[in-house]
């Protein structure tokens, strides 16, 4: 029997390593015929740690939320006696989280051991590159990608074949392929999952791209915040070199390709291609004017193509199964599948891969199970700091590049942060502006100073100091920042503000004119009170960190509003629903 434990960052964070150690210990103690192995993240992060047990007949039993204390029972009953512990296995409902998806990019994540190249090969790995270098010309490869309709998964949705073709046609022998693995959108983690769970699919995708454009060197620019991803990539590269699928004269074709990793150092602006190149060259990551585009003059002034992790991880599947098979999924203009990182106020958070064009409702309710604690769905934020908030009224919007862009948000890298009635939309706008203001490289005045001014206005609105004309001022600044910025960061930074004004203008007006936060989240605009439902249990006064609550035992307590810091601990601690927020 085989015991496979999911050890992506999310699994490890919930204690998967301790669970694995417990399995190993008990299996050794009882001298059982079972091996313990690892895999990446299967995507159901809310169920971690996840343990898959394959019987000798190949039957799979999946256990969820397995903490070390649960291991003994599974070992005793399943491994020793061969009786699966049904009550600890994944429920039918949770099983559907995965079954309702269509997995191309995540096809191996949570299935194979990412640290063992043999398992990738057994799953048809490195067959696409073999086919490509032994039987296809570079133009044929580019044509296949064109047929597939694959577009960049990093944010802009630019046709992938076009970039490859441009780099191929650029004169020169020395060309570079760069993989952008600097997943900067706070709230997206699909690239991390692919890097940790299926690094070989990225390597294979890069080799194919290198072959198509005539590059012999690839560079992976990976976030330093993802140490496990870098570690697994290094293992994968060593194994690939040993197997002869990376390095010199691949499959006897005479084509050489090698890859190295460069760890990024934390700068959101490096998602912009020219800034990323500057960073690769050891400089401050500041964008420059285009043209020349990187396809003509990129890394060390040589023709360079930059693709994101998810884009490249699609490539081996496309070449192996044919561009038409990929193109058959999705919509007319947005082909294939897309991975979304579902998080926020959602019941089942994790990674979801679905065909493009599926309505938002099917993702959020059908797969994600709806809103946490059955609160009311308010909006979903897509595209991170460059995107926007899509309100509940547009929940039937199909998720593809065109339709999402129409709402004012963008598909972006695929972050989907779900918000409920307790999320203040003005505060969300403030949050994103705080982010872009910090991350602006400072080159363009409008981006550097404009985002700061917008942030100041949003701060004063959330602090109850909003003024008449603030909304109009925000709108005016937004247009100027978009027009006056060189790169995507500045050009999209106002989007979170514009979309929240567009769909939630009433919340802005309530903050400014009525000094009221409908979501009851902006501290300056709320007030805690104790009603006569109070039994005088004194718990809240003990929990209050500033001693603002007083009262006799068994008598109604009161909050001293001058002392109250609005931390909400009293509300959380009260067992009698006697505390109100207004």
């Amino acid at each position, binding site marked *: 029997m085989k015991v496979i434990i999911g050890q992506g960052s999310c699994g490890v964070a919930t204690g998967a390593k301790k669970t694995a150690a417990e399995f190993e210990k008990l299996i050794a103690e009882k001298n059982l015929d079972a091996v313990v192995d690892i895999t990446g993240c299967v995507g159901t992060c809310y169920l971690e740690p996840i343990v898959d047990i394959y019987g000798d007949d190949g039957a799979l039993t999946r256990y969820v939320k397995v903490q070390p204390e649960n291991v003994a029972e599974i070992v005793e009953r399943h491994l020793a006696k061969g009786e699966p512990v049904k009550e600890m296995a994944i429920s039918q409902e949770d099983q559907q989280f995965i079954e309702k998806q269509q997995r191309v990019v995540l096809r191996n994540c949570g299935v194979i051991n990412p640290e063992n190249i043999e398992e990738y090969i057994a799953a048809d790995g490195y067959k696409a590159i073999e086919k490509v270098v032994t039987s296809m010309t570079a133009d044929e490869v580019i044509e296949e990608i064109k047929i597939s309709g694959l577009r960049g998964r990093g944010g802009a949705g630019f046709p992938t074949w076009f970039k490859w073709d441009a780099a191929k046609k650029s004169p020169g022998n020395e060309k570079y392929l760069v993989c952008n693995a600097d997943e900067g959108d706070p709230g*997206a*983690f699909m690239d*991390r999952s692919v890097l940790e769970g299926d690094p070989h699919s990225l390597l294979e995708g890069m080799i194919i791209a290198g072959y198509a454009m005539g590059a012999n060197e690839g560079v992976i620019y990976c976030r330093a915040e993802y140490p496990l991803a870098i570690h697994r990539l290094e293992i994968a590269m060593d194994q690939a070199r040993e197997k002869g699928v990376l390095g010199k004269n691949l499959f006897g074709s005479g084509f050489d390709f090698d890859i190295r990793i460069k*760890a990024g*150092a934390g700068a*959101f602006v490096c998602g912009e291609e020219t800034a990323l190149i500057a960073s690769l060259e050891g400089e401050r990551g500041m964008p420059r004017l285009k043209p020349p585009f990187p396809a003509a003059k990129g890394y060390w002034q040589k023709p360079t193509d930059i693709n994101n992790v998810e884009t490249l991880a699609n490539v081996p599947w496309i070449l192996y199964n044919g561009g038409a098979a990929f193109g058959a999924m999705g919509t007319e203009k947005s082909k294939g599948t897309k991975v979304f990182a579902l998080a926020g*106020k959602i019941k089942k*958070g994790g990674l979801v891969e679905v065909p493009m064009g599926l309505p938002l409702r099917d993702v959020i309710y059908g797969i994600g199970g709806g809103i946490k604690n059955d609160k009311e769905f308010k909006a979903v934020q897509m595209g991170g700091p460059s995107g926007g908030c899509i309100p509940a009224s547009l929940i039937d919007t199909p998720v593809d590049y065109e339709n999402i862009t129409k709402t004012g948000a963008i598909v972006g890298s695929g972050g989907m942060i779900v918000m409920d009635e307790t999320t203040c939309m003005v505060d969300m706008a403030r949050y994103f502006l705080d982010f872009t203001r910090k991350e602006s490289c400072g080159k363009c005045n409008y981006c550097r100073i404009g985002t700061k001014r917008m942030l100041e206005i949003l701060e004063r609105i959330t602090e109850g100091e909003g003024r008449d004309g603030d909304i109009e001022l925000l709108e005016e600044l937004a247009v100027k920042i978009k027009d006056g910025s060189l790169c995507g960061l500045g050009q999209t930074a106002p989007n979170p503000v514009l979309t929240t004004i567009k769909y939630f203008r009433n919340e802005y007006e309530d903050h400014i004119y009525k000094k009221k936060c409908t979501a009851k989240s902006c501290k300056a605009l709320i007030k805690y009170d104790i009603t006569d439902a109070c039994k005088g249990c004194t718990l809240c006064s003990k929990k209050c960190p500033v001693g603002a609550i007083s009262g006799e035992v068994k008598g109604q307590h009161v909050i001293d509003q001058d002392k109250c810091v609005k*931390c909400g601990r009293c509300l959380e601690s009260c067992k009698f629903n006697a505390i109100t927020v207004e």
Partner: protein
Amino acid sequence: MSEKGCCCGHTMDQQFTELAPVLDKYAKVPGSLITILQKAQDIYGYLSFDAINYISQATGIKPAKIYGVATFYSQFRLKPIGKYLIMLCKGTACHVNGADTIEESICEYLNIQDGETTEDGLFTLNNVACLGCCSLAPVMMVKSAEGDETYGNLTKDSVKEVLAEIRERA
């Protein structure tokens, strides 16, 4: 290494023996400055002005330029850090799930603000953009010589328990 100091007359007394092999490997490879700074920070925990001057001498890159690169990226620190580095995730999912209240709780418990170190030199708090564990929000990672440990689904109280446990262990 040479004992030559910078132009202000300040001399370096630290021997950068651990950094020397890194520079032997990367000093003359174009575009390696960020890699060198990362390795230097891994070794010493932060980038001191002496370290920057030392790197400058080995690479021929001006200290001002190294300083410019070091201050551009959020990863680099110019001040020493505590034994345990708390990286509190301020990503969107964590924000929506109350990362600000977790920060308040940490600040209250340790009596420091973002970027500061406790007086006993045990903890440094750093807010970070995103740790990529969004479905476990709110999340923090604690980095130390013992390794990196990630804690998810934090609450105002559980975060204090985690820190108390570390403090006891240390």
